[in-house]
């Protein structure tokens, strides 16, 4: 495994000197250093898309905020992951996620095990200032083992990526634009009628909220297992090497 060509860089994150391999992202290095950066669309083992914007950080000398999940470290980089401005933006982003669809924690299968809930608590989001958009959305229970509840979906597209990149089925995709965007099965059909879905359940387990869940779970009963992902990713990397 030892790779002679790996270059090592040093950088500063929140005043802390850290070392990293070139090619690592700010997110990875921060995690190793025990620095928490909130995220929602990122999940270890899948490609990063920089879409939820929760992991935006300040990098000295850069005019714009950069997503920690897609930005690679560089020698001498000075990164700030947490200050008043970033906290304010992150709080508003979480508020917007809640306001976009119908997130009612009290009756959600994922209550207590929900990543959106956890991030909101960590960021100190106690209430939502903006009006809820309350869209009318369908519910798909046509699959024999799983349910899809658009009311809880935050469009992080983890399901789309895990299905494409790990399972190789590409059952999931996204249709529509803006707030009309919606995750879809195959050609926008009921899940139960999908011919590409293998029923592996990876999408359910990477879903951060209660949008994808197993059938037969009552309120607060849906816990997700995500350990398979890093394991599968590492196994594949070794195979290819």
């Amino acid at each position: 495994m030892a790779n002679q060509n790996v270059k090592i860089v040093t950088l500063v994150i929140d005043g802390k000197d850290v070392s990293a391999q070139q090619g690592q992202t700010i997110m990875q290095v921060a995690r190793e250093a025990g620095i928490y950066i909130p995220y929602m669309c990122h999940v270890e083992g899948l490609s990063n898309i920089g879409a939820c914007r929760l992991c935006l950080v300040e990098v000295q000398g850069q005019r714009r905020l950069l997503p920690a999940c897609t930005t690679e470290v560089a020698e001498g980089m000075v990164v700030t992951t947490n200050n008043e401005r970033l906290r304010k933006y992150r709080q508003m982003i979480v508020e917007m996620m809640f306001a976009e669809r119908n997130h009612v924690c009290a009756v959600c299968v994922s209550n207590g095990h929900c990543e959106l809930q956890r991030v909101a608590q960590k960021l100190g989001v106690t209430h939502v200032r903006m009006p809820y958009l309350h869209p009318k959305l369908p519910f798909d229970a046509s699959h024999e083992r799983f349910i899809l509840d658009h009311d809880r979906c935050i469009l992080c597209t983890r399901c789309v990526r895990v299905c494409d990149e790990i399972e190789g089925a590409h059952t999931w995709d996204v249709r529509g634009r803006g707030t009309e965007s919606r995750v879809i099965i195959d050609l926008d059909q009921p899940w139960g009628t999908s011919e590409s879905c293998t029923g592996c359940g990876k999408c359910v387990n990477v879903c951060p909220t209660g949008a994808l869940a197993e059938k037969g779970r009552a309120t607060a009963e849906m816990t997700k297992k995500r350990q398979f992902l890093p394991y599968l990713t590492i196994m594949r990397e070794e195979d290819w090497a």
Partner: protein
Amino acid sequence: MTLEELLQRAAEEREKQAAFRHTIRVCVAAGCLSAGSDKVKAALQAEVEARGLKHTCQVKGVGCLGLCSVGPLIAVDDAYCRNVTPEDAGGIIDRLGDRPAERLYLSAEMPFFARQQKIVLENSGRIDPERIEDYIAADGYQALLYALHEMTPAEVIREVTESGLRGRGGAGYPTGLKWSTVAKADGGGQKYVICNADEGDPGAFMDRSVLESDPHRVIEGMAIAGYAVGANRGFIYVRAEYPLAIQRLRAAIRQAERAGLLGNEIGGTTFDFSIAVRLGAGAFVCGEETALMASIEGKRGQPRPRPPYPAESGLYGKPTLINNVETFANIAPIIRKGGAWFAAIGTEKSKGTKVFALAGDVQNTGLVEVPMGLTLRDVVFDIGGGIPNGGRFKAVQTGGPSGGCVPEQYLDMPVDYESLTKLGSIMGSGGMIVMADTACMVDVARYFMEFCMTESCGKCVPCRVGTAQMYGLLTRITKGLATAEDLQLLEDLCDMVRNTSLCGLGQSAPNPVSSTLRYFRDEYLAHIAGRTCPAGKCEMVADPEKEVA
């Protein structure tokens, strides 16, 4: 075709044209066509034929003559005729060589024509866009063959850099710098050149006109770019809503290929360059470069974070040069006349000219090209002829949904990248919408926000939800339902969406709101505190208590 053969063909065509004593040019770009200019052209041709003037007077279809508001527009030798109908044909031929009838006559001396300076549009309204011979007679493709035979790629880039040309798509990135970055990138043998013709700003039609009026100019610019950066494949991404532009572009590519000016071994050199047209399916966000490239690759048209920039990893992961239509349209004259010539036009930091689509509450709507540094007042009042029907000027909106509104007190600011940015607007691609005092600025901001909301691709949260929230707040304001807290929230959202969105669409979506808040805050307050619309445009809800509940 070698340079000598090209010059030979140009001379032959010029000789042929010089044989005509009179030339009647009929605009056959989309604006005048929709007003029936094809029938006018047919009537004029029939009249010429019937009188046996076929060998002394030529009637040709040409690109945009500029003053779209009085189409169909034709030019009889050097005089313009407006609102021409097929019935006018006889009278026009009667007076050949004389001044046209007073009802039709428009002097070429009027400020609208006289104050323009044409580089990009030098052939628009002069040549037949469907004939390559006409373009060649107007020195077309000389720059390409000259560059291929006499210049190294580095020299071409040096010339473009020296010209000071900046990207005409809106952001104003130095073109020479972009070219040299792509030229230095290692593509492992494959690089691409893309022309962004996905013009989508409401009220903007510069790129469409250039493609309809002078498609070969864009092709020549792209081929020169391909030579300079080391790419042999080009794509033109043009929106499907421009059928005429697409048709002419495709015809032009075929003609150029047949003439040996595109394809393999261009001009007898070892340089190969081919161009394919790709159609956009109507998504505004596909004008963003990374979304555009995803769309060409057949993927969902969504942007991705940069870096890596297209110059390093673009189309199919290869180094890609992506420029706007108008940028490419400037290249041939720069190579022909030299970078220094171009750099002498315009202001210190903004060189050359800019094409604007003048629209809204203004006398002369149409397409204009002016040197950078002209004041907004000159463009709106002198060239544009001011507000019709004795109305009062209120603001001019530049840059489309990413731009802002400039009020009267800044009308004497020069039109260049830096000045417009300082005013809270942007140069943008060239849409310029003039508004009279009948326009409600909150309503204008709401209009543009609705546009951004429906055009947001939905990938990142701030743009997807933020624009919807801002649109909701603006709607509340225009209905007289908003409170002071709503205004505060609107301002917070502007700041957040601008700084956290993934691509330019979201980052600039708050601009119409922030610029109107900056210059017309009293109008917002009148809606909120006074529950009245100063312009009399918005209808207030009669009973706010009921509505809120």
